[in-house]
């Protein structure tokens, strides 16, 4: 197999850089971190879905809780089905973004009580600068004729089953790109945060992963690759 001079120099430079930082160059060899919020999350099946997708993709990943704090080792932090977001979890998310990691934040607030939702919204607004609307019920009585899919446009197009209720996005201030829609509602966002990227999911993806949706899995893996690679 031949190798060009440019590629060779690229590799050697990468090795040197990685050595200096104490981490491998390839971002996929960093760990993906699944932040398990336990009772503060909404759906256990969402956690199981991400676990199963990461394991079947043979990704290097670890499960952590809100006390975990090693952002420099993290390629992408996944926060499944978040409902209550206590200060230690906010700190983990913000630290990961500052350290240049991707963060996939999946909101579980679609099934929240009013009080839970208000607290959820305040944390997202004040700490992550994500502005959301109240949850929308996608399946009111006798609405069996609707198309039951969320359409993702980034990092690849994908149709993934909706999860009955969504937390739509309000018009955002600053940078950001809507990356998924359902029934005309913007429900997922990609925006820079710190040196990393924040991916906000207002429609849970985890249950579709858990139910074995191949397209959802492909979307997640692309998202992990891209979010982890787009580090500053």
């Amino acid at each position: 197999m031949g190798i060009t001079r440019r590629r060779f120099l690229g590799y050697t430079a990468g090795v040197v850089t990685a050595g200096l930082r104490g981490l491998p160059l390839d971002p996929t060899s960093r760990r993906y971190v699944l932040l398990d919020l336990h009772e503060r999350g909404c759906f256990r099946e969402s956690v199981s879905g991400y676990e199963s997708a990461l394991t079947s993709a043979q990704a290097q990943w670890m499960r952590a809780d809100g006390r975990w704090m090693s952002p420099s080792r993290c390629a992408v932090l996944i926060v499944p089905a978040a409902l209550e977001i206590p200060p230690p979890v906010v700190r983990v998310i913000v630290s990961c973004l500052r350290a240049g990691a991707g963060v996939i934040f999946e909101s579980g607030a679609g099934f929240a009580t009013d009080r839970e939702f208000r607290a959820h919204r305040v944390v997202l607004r004040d700490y992550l600068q994500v502005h959301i609307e109240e949850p929308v019920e996608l399946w009111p009585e006798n609405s069996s004729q609707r198309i039951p899919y969320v359409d993702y446009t980034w990092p690849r197009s994908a149709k993934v089953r909706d999860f009955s209720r969504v937390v739509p996005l309000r018009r955002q201030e600053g940078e950001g790109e809507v990356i998924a829609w359902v029934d005309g509602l913007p429900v997922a966002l990609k925006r820079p945060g710190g040196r990393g990227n924040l991916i906000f999911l207002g429609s849970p993806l985890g249950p579709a992963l858990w139910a074995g949706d191949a397209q959802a899995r492909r979307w997640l893996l692309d998202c992990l690759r891209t979010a982890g690679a787009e580090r500053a």
Partner: protein
Amino acid sequence: MKKAIGDNMIPKEWGFEKGLELVKQAGFDGIELWLGDVPWFQMGTPDSEVWELRRKVENAGLVVSNVSTGLHWASPLSARDPKVRAQAVRIVEREIETAMLLGTDAILLVAGLVTPEVPYNEVYQRCLEALRPLGEKAARSGVRIGCENCNAEQRFLISPREFWQFLNDVNSPAVGIHLDVGNIHDTGFAEQWIEIHGPRITRIHVKDVMTKRGRCGDQSVYTNLFLGDNNWPAIRGAMTKVGYDGWLVAEMEARYRYAPDQQFYDTARAMDRLISGRF
């Protein structure tokens, strides 16, 4: 084999005690109690009153054949909303508790509900995850959970092999099938379901079904024993083949316009003929 009928068949204006007299006089051995479907047996009915129900049943010369419920149609184990799912689990737990109080060893549940909103794969997974711990609880309590085959209404576990695989995946000796021979309609043959599930059958619901009547119309497909298209000699033969000697529980629609109590007598006689195999 023993025969029972549901307390939800008792004319509402009769009340529980008068209903029990009718059930006994009609010739039944037992009664199926429907949690949440009748005023005397609700989720909020305290243990002391459940004991009282048992006392009344036994005073009438009957026993409780099993505990059933229709509450899972509104609160299914397969619901996406964790709060609804928690309520569904609580319903099963209350069935188990009351089964123990009532002196029976079987409960019925409708395991999951596939809808345009909640797709099959999710329902399957969620039911497995709910039933595994419930099976352990049931086993500790000496009770068996019978998942009913509500084929068309559930749009779930439509074929006997599929149901078999589901029970394999649950993998609990305390979780089996409460087989309804009327629910199979034109998607199969009750006798084949009996043969496939054999020892996993916890109870058998009996009613007849008119397979030529489409499900899409506004007329019921269900009818009284021997008036529909079930192959009753084959069903009886399958029960013998697999050694089923448990409860047969009448579950039909109350369609008698006059003399509603007559349905109890007619049903009991028909069940006697089924049990004795005289066709």
